[in-house]
C-alpha cells in the first residue's frame, strides 16, 4: 500500500496553534491576489515531512503561496505559506509547515480560528509586467523570495489549488494534536501562469529543513474571491486519514 508519513509531531506540538473549538464563522473575501509556486522536492525526505495520517504525493511536492487579502474582519493582510503536497486518504491536500502574516491581528485570528501556524513578519506581493514576486522578511532577514517569471494569461478554470491541513492543538484533543482541514472555495476573475523561481528560501525559518525544491512545476498568479471557510473536517494525525477523519460541520 502507499507510503505514509513518519513525522513525529510531538516536538511540533509545543509551538502549535491552540484552538478552543472549530466553530469559527467563515470569512469571505473578494479580490484576493494570490501567487502560488509548486516544485518537486527532494524525495529522500518524502515521508519524514508528513504525519502518519497522510501519504506523500508521487513525486513529492511543495507549495509556496503568498496572498494579499485586501479586506477581512481583521483588516487587510498578506499571508505567506509553505506547504507540502500530500494525500489525506485519496484526497489532495497541502500540509502547512509554517505561515507568516503582516498583521498581528490577522495572525492571531488565523491561529486561533483556523489553526494556521502563523507568525508576524513583513510579507509583500509585488506585481511587475515580467514577474510577480512574493517576499517575506523576518526581523530584517529575507526568508523567502519566490517569483512567477513571464506571466501569460490562462483560464481560471484551469487552475486548481489544494486544501490545507494545519497541525493545531484543540481544547478537546488531550494535547495530542489535530489536523484541521481548511478548504476554501475559489472564484477566479483572472489567472496567469509562468515559470516558478525561488531566489531565497531560508528553510529553518519555515520549519522546512528537509524541503529542498529540486524541479520546478508551475507558478500561477490569480485574482479571485476566496476566504477562510467553516471548518468541516479534522483528522487524528497519528492514524491513517481514511480511518481518523472526523466530520465537525457541514
Amino acid at each position, binding site marked *: 500500500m502507499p507510503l505514509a508519513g513518519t513525522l513525529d509531531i510531538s516536538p511540533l506540538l509545543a509551538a502549535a496553534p491552540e484552538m478552543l473549538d472549530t466553530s469559527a464563522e467563515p470569512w469571505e473575501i473578494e479580490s484576493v491576489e494570490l501567487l502560488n509556486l509548486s516544485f518537486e522536492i527532494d524525495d529522500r525526505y518524502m515521508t519524514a515531512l508528513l504525519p502518519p495520517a497522510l501519504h506523500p504525493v508521487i513525486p513529492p511536492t511543495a507549495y509556496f503561496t503568498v496572498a494579499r487579502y485586501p479586506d477581512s474582519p481583521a483588516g487587510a493582510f498578506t499571508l505567506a505559506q509553505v506547504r507540502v503536497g500530500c494525500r489525506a486518504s485519496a484526497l489532495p491536500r497541502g500540509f502547512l509547515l509554517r505561515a507568516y502574516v503582516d498583521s498581528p491581528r490577522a495572525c492571531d485570528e488565523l491561529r486561533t480560528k483556523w489553526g494556521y501556524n502563523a507568525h508576524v513578519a513583513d510579507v509583500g506581493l509585488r506585481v511587475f509586467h515580467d514577474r510577480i514576486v512574493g517576499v517575506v522578511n523576518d526581523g530584517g532577514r529575507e526568508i523567502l523570495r519566490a517569483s512567477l517569471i513571464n506571466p501569460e494569461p490562462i483560464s481560471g478554470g*484551469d487552475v486548481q489549488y489544494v486544501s490545507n491541513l494545519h497541525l493545531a492543538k484543540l481544547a478537546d484533543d488531550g494535547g495530542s494534536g489535530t489536523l484541521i482541514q481548511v478548504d476554501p472555495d475559489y472564484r477566479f476573475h483572472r489567472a496567469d501562469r509562468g515559470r516558478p523561481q525561488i531566489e531565497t528560501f531560508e528553510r529553518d525559518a519555515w520549519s522546512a529543513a528537509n524541503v529542498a525544491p529540486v524541479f520546478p512545476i508551475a507558478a500561477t498568479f490569480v485574482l479571485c474571491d476566496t476566504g477562510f471557510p467553516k471548518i468541516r473536517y479534522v483528522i487524528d494525525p497519528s492514524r491513517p486519514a481514511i480511518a481518523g477523519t472526523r466530520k465537525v460541520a457541514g
Partner: protein
Amino acid sequence: MKFGIFYELSVPRPWDREAERTVYENALEQVRLADELGFDQVWCVEHHFLEEYSHSSAPELFLTACAMQTKNIRVGHGIVVCVPQFNHPVRIAERAAVLDILSGGRLEMGTGRSATWTELAGFRASPDDTKKTWDEIVRCLPKMWTQERFSHDGYAFSMPSRAILPKPYQKPHPPMWVAVTSPGTEIDAAERGLGSLGLTFGGFSDQEKRIAEYRRRIKSCDPVGEIVNEQVNTVNFLLCHEDDATGIATGTRLAGTFNYLASQLLSAREAYPSRSYPSLGLLPQLRREQTSPGDAPRVPEGLCIGDPARIVDVVRNWEACGVDRINFLLNAVETVPQEQVLASMRLFAKEVMPKFAPATAAATAAAGGN
C-alpha cells in the same frame, strides 16, 4: 457485447526480487485462462514511474508473451503514449507491426497521451503539447504501416523518407483506438474514425450521452487510417462470486485498493494548469466522490462485482448505453488471491458470457447446431 481483460500490472510493496515476477506470472496465467474461456481481448497499458499503481512500462513485451501463449485472444496495445519524448513515432509503428505479426494479426492499437505529471515531467514533456503531438502521431501511424516509404515534417517529429519495417500482418492495418477519459475526447475519437477506448468507471447516464454523441459524430468522420473503427470499449472491475455479498465485499475491496493507489499519483491537471488537460483524467476521477475520507463510502454504479445475476444486469445496462466491449481489471497489488481471480473468471464465463453471445451463435445453439 465482447469481453476482455485489462492490465495495469500493479505491484505491492516491498518490491523484493519475486514481487514483480509474481504479478507478471499471475497475469499471464489469467490471460491463458481468458483465452480458453473465450474472452475476446487482453489490453495492457503503458505507464512509467507510477509506483505500485502500474509497473507496466514495456507492454509490448508482456503482450508478446500473451500472444505466444494463446490462440485466439486479441492483444490490445494500449494505450501507447503518443508523446515523442516517451516514444519516437517510428518505434511505435515498428513495435506494433512486430506484435501484429507475432500474434498472427491479433493486434488492437490504442493511442493516448498520458495524464500524470509524474510521467510527463519524468520525460520532460510539456502538458501543453500532448494533444497536438498525439494528433500528429495518430495521423502518421497508418501511413507508416501502409506506405512503402514514409517521410514527415511536423511539430512532434520530422524525418526524411524511409521504409518503416516490418508492416503489420492485418490489412490495411490494425484497428486503432484512443483512450477516452476527459469529456470531449470521445469527440476526438469520433472525428478521426477511431474506436473509443473508455477508461472511466461507472456512471451509466453520463456514459450514454457521451456514446450517443460519439456515434453521431463518427458518421461524418475524417478517418486517420484506412478503416473506421466505430466501437466503444470500456473498462470495469470484475469479481464474480456465487455469493453476492462475498462478491460485492471482495470486489469493493479490489476497486477501492486500485482507486486508492491511483489517487496517490500527481495528475497533470492538478500539477500544471493547462488548457490541454481540461479535466482531471482517470486517476483523480477514481477518487471516491465524497468530500473527505470521513464521509460514508458507497458502491459505485455500474461495477461488475457480485453474483452472476447482478453482473448480468449491470452488463445489460452497459449494453443499453451503447457499449460494445467491456474490459475487466481483475486485481490490484494482488489484493485478491490468484485462485479467487481465476474462479471469478470461470464463473463469469460460465454464467454471464453466454447471456451476451452473438445472436447467430445463440440461434445456432438453440437449433441444435454446432
